[in-house]
C-alpha cells in the first residue's frame, strides 16, 4: 500500500513535467498544424540558461525565493526570445510551403541545438551531463513509516508551479483577447487574417509562450533529476510528444491528461512489472489509444482547439 502511494507520487511528479512540455507541442500544433520537434531542445536550452543563472547568483542567493524567481524568469524570457527567433527565421519563411518542409526544418533545428550544445566553445559546458545546482534545497515534507513514503518539498512546489502555469494558460486561451485571436488563427489563419487579426504576431506570441513554458518545465525537470545534458531535450521531447498525441494534439486539457497518464503508466510498469517493459508499454499504450480513438483521448472533433 505504501509502495503504491510512493509510485503514485513519483508518477505524478514525472507526469506534470510531461504535461507542461506537451502543452507547448499542442499550442504550436493548434495554431500552425506544425509538430515542433525542436520543442524539447528549446527546453534544454532553457535549462542551460537556468544553470548559468544559478551559478552566477552563487550558492546562497540561488536557493532563496528571489533567487529561484530570477532563475525561472531568466530561463523563461530567454527561451521566449529563442522561440521568437526560431519562428521568425526558420518557420515563417516556410509558412506557405508544404507542411513537410517545416517539419523537416523542425527536426533540423532540434539536431542543431542538441549537437551544437555539445561543442567545446568555452561558454558552453560541453557534452557531458552536469549536475544541476540545488535551486530548491531538498527537504522532506512528509515521511510515512520507515521512509516507506517520502514526499519532498520540491515535488510539491513543482506540482504547484505546474498547476499554476496550466491554469494561467487555460485562462489566457479562453478568457483573453489574445486567446481568442489564437483560437481564431487555429481555425483558419487566412480567414482570421481577413478579419483583421495580426496572424504573424499571434503566431510569434504563441511560439514565445510555448517556449517559455518549455523552459519552466525543463527547470522543474532538472530540479527533479538533478542533472542537465545537451541530449535531455530529445528524450523528454519525444515522451511529451507522445503525451500530447495521447491527449489529442491541439487540445489543451488533453495535453495535461496525456502527460499525467503517461507519467503514471511508466511509473507503474517499472514498479510492478519489469523495467525493461517501460517504453514498450508507453508506446504500446499510444498505439492502443490511437486505434480506439484516432484523434487521441479528447479527439480532434472537439470545438475547443487552440
Amino acid at each position: 500500500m505504501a509502495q503504491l502511494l510512493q509510485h503514485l507520487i513519483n508518477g505524478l511528479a514525472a507526469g506534470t513535467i510531461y504535461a507542461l512540455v506537451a502543452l507547448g507541442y499542442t499550442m504550436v500544433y493548434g495554431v500552425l498544424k506544425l509538430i515542433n520537434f525542436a520543442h524539447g531542445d528549446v527546453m534544454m536550452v532553457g535549462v542551460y540558461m537556468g544553470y548559468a543563472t544559478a551559478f552566477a547568483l552563487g550558492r546562497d542567493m540561488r536557493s532563496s525565493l528571489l533567487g529561484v524567481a530570477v532563475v525561472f524568469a531568466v530561463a523563461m524570457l530567454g527561451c521566449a526570445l529563442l522561440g521568437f527567433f526560431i519562428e521568425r527565421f526558420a518557420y515563417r519563411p516556410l509558412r506557405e510551403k508544404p507542411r513537410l518542409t517545416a517539419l523537416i526544418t523542425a527536426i533540423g533545428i532540434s539536431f542543431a541545438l542538441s549537437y551544437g550544445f555539445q561543442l567545446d566553445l568555452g561558454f558552453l559546458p560541453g557534452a557531458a551531463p552536469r549536475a544541476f545546482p540545488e535551486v530548491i534545497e531538498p527537504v522532506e515534507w512528509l515521511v510515512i513509516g520507515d521512509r516507506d513514503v517520502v514526499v519532498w518539498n520540491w515535488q510539491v512546489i513543482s506540482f504547484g508551479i505546474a498547476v499554476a502555469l496550466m491554469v494561467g494558460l487555460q485562462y489566457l486561451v479562453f478568457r483573453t483577447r489574445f486567446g481568442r485571436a489564437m483560437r481564431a488563427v487555429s481555425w483558419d489563419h487566412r480567414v482570421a487574417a481577413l478579419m483583421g487579426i495580426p496572424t504573424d504576431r499571434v503566431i510569434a506570441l504563441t511560439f514565445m509562450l510555448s517556449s517559455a513554458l518549455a523552459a519552466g518545465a525543463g527547470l522543474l525537470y532538472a530540479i527533479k533529476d538533478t542533472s542537465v545534458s545537451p541530449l535531455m531535450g530529445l528524450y523528454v521531447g519525444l515522451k511529451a510528444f507522445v503525451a500530447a498525441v495521447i491527449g489529442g494534439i491541439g487540445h489543451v486539457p488533453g495535453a495535461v491528461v496525456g502527460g499525467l497518464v503517461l507519467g503514471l503508466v511508466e511509473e507503474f510498469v517499472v514498479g510492478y512489472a519489469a523495467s525493461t517493459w517501460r517504453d514498450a508499454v508507453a508506446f504500446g499504450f499510444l498505439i492502443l489509444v490511437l486505434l480506439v480513438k484516432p484523434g487521441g483521448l479528447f479527439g480532434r472533433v472537439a470545438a475547443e482547439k487552440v
Partner: protein
Amino acid sequence: MRRLAPMLLAALAVMVAACEKKTQPAPSGEGGTQAAQGQGAAPGGAPADANTILLGQVGSLTGGQATFGISTRNGIELALKEANAAGGVKGKKLSIRVYDNQSKPEEAAQAATRLITQDKVALILGDVASSNSLAMAEKAQAAGVPMITPSSTNPTVTDKGDYIFRVCFIDPFQGFVMAKFARENLKLNTVAVLQDNKSAYSIGLAEVFTRKFTEMGGKVTAVESYSQGDTDYRAQLTAIRKSQPEGIYVPGYYSEVGIIARQAREVGLKVPLMGGDGWDSEKLFELGGSAIEGSYFSNHYSPDNPDPRVQKFIADYKAAYGAVPDALAALGYDSARVAVNALERAKDLSGPSVRDAIAQTKDFPGVAGTVTLDAQRNAVKSAVVLKVEDGKTQYVTTINP
C-alpha cells in the same frame, strides 16, 4: 520576405562550411602537425606521405560518454608525442586522425570505414564503449586493418576476428572481481542488480556478477533495468528497496550512476553501490555528490600506484591536460604504446605483419598493468577495487585473475 531568402541561404552556406570544417581531424600536438602536412600533400583524406605513419582513432568525443573519448584521446596523444620525441618508428613520424562517433555505434562504424578506405591508416585505436567497438571491429576485421581497443571490456569484441585486440581485461573478470569483493571483503549476503539494458557492457557485467555471486553463496534479490539517457530511476529503486538488499550492483556509466546514487538515497536506500570501470570519470563525483560516497567500483588502474612509471605518466599528463588521468586515459596511453611497440617490431607496415607483431606482445609494461595478450587477443591482468571517499577514489585492494 523576399529579401530574407538570400540571407537565409547565406546563413545556410556558412553553417555547411562550418560543418565541413568540423569533420576534419582536429590537429593536436606534434602528431597533429604531421596530419596537416599529410593532408596538404594529398587533400581529401588521402594516406599519409612517405615520412609518416598514420594511425586512426574513433572515440566518443560528444554524446553521453564524452569524457571517455576525450580522456582516451589525450592518453593516445601523449604516447605518440613521446614516441615522436624519441625518433618515431622506423625513421618515420607517427600521426593520428581522430573521428567522433557521438557515442553511437552507427557513427562508429562509419568513422572506422572512413579511416580504412579514405585515410588508409595502418592501425585503428578505439573505442571505449563496447557497443561502439563492436561496430568498428566488424569493419576493421573485414578490411584486414589491425584494431586495438583500449578499454572495451565486452568479450565479444575480440571474437570478431584475428585483427582485433585489446589492452584491458574482459567483463567476466570485472563481474567476478566485484562478486568476490562483495562476498569476501564486504561480507554481503544479498545484493540487487540495476543494469543498463541499452549497453552490452552493462548487461555482460550484470550477468557474470549474478552468476558468480550466487555461486559464492550470495543471493540476488532483484534485477531491474533502465535505458541510457534516463534520468528518473525512482520506480526501479523503490522496487529494489522493497527487496531489502545489503548492496546494489550498478554496472552502468558515470552519466547515469551519479543520478542513480542521488535518487537511491532519496528513496531511502542507504546500502553501498558497486560498479565497474564505467564509473571512472571526474563527473561521477559532481553528479553523485555526497550520495556516491562509500561506493565501490572495479577499475584498471589507480593513480595511487607508487610505481615510478605510473607517477611519471601522471605528472606528464597533468602537465599537458591539467587533470589527473583516469583509467581510460591510462588505457589509451597503453594502447598507443603497445601499437608503437608492435609497429617497431613488425617487418613491414602491412596489415598481417602488424597483426602478428601485436599478437606477440608479452609482458609489456603499461601504466595500467603489465600487458600480455592471450590466444583470444585479450590482455590478462589484475583489477583494482576503488572506494569513493571525499569526492575522490581511494585504492582498496587488488584482485588477481
